[in-house]
């Protein structure tokens, strides 16, 4: 399964732009309390869940869409979106289990044989996957293997049914329903997502992964992911996403929450490849996502690694609240924008506990007419003695019609803090390109090499199979952007 998913990822142009013809079970367009009741009823939810949703919805109604991000777009019409679209069961399982020969061919064209892919990923089946198709989780693999270790890995809906005490306890802890406009919207209408609980003392024997795909037209995707790492546990979590090529903009407003207990560590990696719109800026996904983790207890660690190549407009700040003493937060990011894409992304590191440490490495790459902004907040609260942060924000420009911006915010309330910030902006060098060409490497390949080299610090943080995929994606996203 993991391989199929990777195959689907590693393709030319936006080859992910296919739609799958499957019957869907949809809610009528629009948003009101009845729709929320409809979703909740469809999912057979307990009363407390419906209450959570309605409360969030009432909150959301009094909120206004924020405008501080360095992006401009036509505001979504929230009454023109379908909030629930589920593939009818039976058929879609078959369609996801088969490997489309066309996909395999493209895969071959990219020069990656299945064998090589297998070799790189060690064993073929070392990733457990949860697949979220439009709004509903359709398949979670390796559930049983994981269950033997006491790991719970299932769809969010199942968790609500089977582990209500955990969901109730942790949901909204890192991202309260009132947090921001899109988090509130998500809390009201989320339809599914992944849930993961790693019990005390367990290291997950495999990478866990969620694969998101928006398929139906006119739908929004509002999934929720909740990851809880109990004391002394570890998990590495991967998230991948694609969407069909459509002329209209589609909204993706997800919430991801991570909670780590004492000595626990969660590594969360994303390769985001939502449809970015065409070269004139038509269509594409609006990606307005709230991702946040809390290092709840001492010596815990949360690490976000992201490679962002897709979406028309991206707006996301995977953050860490460092509450436990000695806890560690990390953010490694590559954000690529080409054509008319816009990205405003970065992180927040909130230091509350003593001796907390955070590292931020952000690599922005802008090409075409795109705009790429880094926005980051490092906050050292009073009492967070000996907190340390190191931030490095690099921007790489390709051509002279694109923009790169850096908005670092630093708030220090404790004198013992050490905060370092470095920023560079560079242009891809003609000298470098010529040097590559003189060795027989053409423009496209040269850009691929140089860009991958530039992003190496971040790519190195990705699990092997994801890193390979990310490298190809970077090259593909920047095709035709220089020279």
């Amino acid at each position, binding site marked *: 399964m993991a391989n199929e998913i990777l195959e689907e990822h590693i393709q030319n142009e936006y080859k992910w732009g296919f739609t799958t013809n499957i019957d869907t079970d949809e809610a009528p367009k629009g948003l009101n309390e009845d729709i929320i009741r409809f979703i909740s009823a469809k999912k057979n939810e307990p009363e407390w869940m419906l209450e959570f949703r309605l409360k969030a919805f009432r909150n959301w109604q009094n909120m206004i869409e924020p405008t501080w991000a360095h992006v401009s777009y036509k505001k979504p019409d929230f009454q023109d979106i379908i909030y629930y679209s589920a593939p009818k069961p039976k058929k879609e399982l078959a369609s996801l289990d088969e490997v489309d020969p066309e996909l395999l061919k493209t895969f071959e064209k990219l020069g990656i044989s299945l064998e090589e892919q297998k070799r790189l990923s060690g064993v073929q089946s070392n990733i457990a996957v949860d697949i979220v198709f439009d709004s509903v989780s359709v398949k979670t693999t390796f559930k049983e293997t994981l269950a033997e270790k006491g790991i719970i890995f299932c769809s969010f809906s199942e968790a609500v049914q089977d582990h209500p005490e955990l969901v109730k306890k942790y949901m909204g802890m890192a991202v309260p329903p009132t947090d921001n406009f899109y988090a509130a919207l998500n809390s009201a209408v989320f339809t599914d997502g992944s849930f993961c609980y790693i019990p005390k003392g367990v290291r997950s024997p495999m990478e866990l992964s969620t694969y998101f795909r928006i398929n139906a037209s006119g739908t929004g995707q509002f999934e929720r992911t909740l990851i809880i790492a109990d004391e002394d546990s570890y998990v590495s979590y991967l998230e991948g996403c694609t969407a069909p090529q459509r002329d209209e903009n589609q909204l993706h407003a997800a919430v991801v929450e991570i909670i780590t207990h004492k000595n626990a560590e969660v590594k969360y990696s994303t390769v985001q490849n939502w449809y970015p719109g065409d070269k004139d800026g038509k269509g594409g996904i609006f990606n307005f996502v709230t991702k946040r983790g809390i290092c709840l207890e001492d010596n815990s660690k949360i690490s976000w690694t992201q490679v962002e190549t897709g979406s028309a407009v991206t707006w996301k700040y995977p953050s860490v609240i460092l509450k436990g003493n000695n806890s560690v937060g990390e953010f490694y990011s590559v954000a690529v924008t080409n054509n008319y894409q816009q990205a405003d992304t970065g992180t927040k590191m909130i230091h509350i506990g003593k001796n907390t440490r955070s590292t931020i490495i952000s690599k922005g790459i802008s090409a075409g007419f795109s705009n790429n902004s880094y926005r980051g907040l490092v906050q050292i609260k009073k009492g967070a003695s000996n907190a340390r942060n190191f931030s490095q924000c690099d921007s790489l420009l390709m051509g002279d019609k694109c923009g790169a911006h850096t908005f670092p915010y630093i708030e220090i309330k404790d004198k013992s803090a050490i905060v370092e910030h470095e920023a560079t902006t560079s242009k891809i060098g003609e000298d470098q390109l010529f040097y590559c060409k*003189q060795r027989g490497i053409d423009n496209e390949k040269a850009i691929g090499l140089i860009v991958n080299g530039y992003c190496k610090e971040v790519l190195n943080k990705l699990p092997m199979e994801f890193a390979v995929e990310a490298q190809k994606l970077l090259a593909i996203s920047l095709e035709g952007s220089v020279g």
Partner: protein
Amino acid sequence: MISIKNLHASIGDKEILRGINLEVKAGEVHAIMGPNGSGKSTLSSVLAGREDYNVTEGEVTFNGKNLLELSPEDRAREGLFLAFQYPVEIPGVSNVNFLRTAVNEIRKYHGQEEMPAKDFLALVKEKSKLVELDAKLASRSVNEGFSGGEKKRNEIFQMAMLNPKLAILDETDSGLDIDALRIVATGVNKLKSKDNATIVITHYQRLLDYIVPDFVHILYKGRIVKSGGKELALEMEAKGYDEIKAQFERIES
């Protein structure tokens, strides 16, 4: 191998090459000397296809092909190699990965399969030995943080890996210590065959003690103003360029 006829090239409206004529045959070594700013690096850049320069007149034939019509990468794939006077750093890209890409791109151009990883690594080993390149340098990022001499040695290592038909060495000797100079020169000599040719650009006759040229040319103000055998280099070293300059100025006026 290469035949350059009346080559003129300019940057902006400044003419830098003003009618170069040069014929290099397989198996030969040619040395080009000349004062700073005379156009030696410009000549090598123009031959390698750097887009900043406009070729305004003349023709260049490389192994029967019109060189000036080829893209820079195709010139390289046809077997033209330039050891840069100032090698470029490419952060984050390992030398080995860089060369593997280059080797396979060149093979692809000639309709050959990719080189198996095992063979490639064996080749790296063999060639790094040839130029006595520290194995650590082969796996480090291309030229990043290399010392001046290491960069030059790395150029010759790359040359050994790519096995070009015509290699142009632009002041590869400058910045090398005596031992490195000998090592690099020995490497170049070992790579020499009756099927390839070398153009050595240098300021110092010393290099030519190791790499013995068949012809020496003096470039001045964008033209080859004097050619001769290896003794011409000795003569220049002894007398300097004054005489040439004076003579040339007379012709000009």
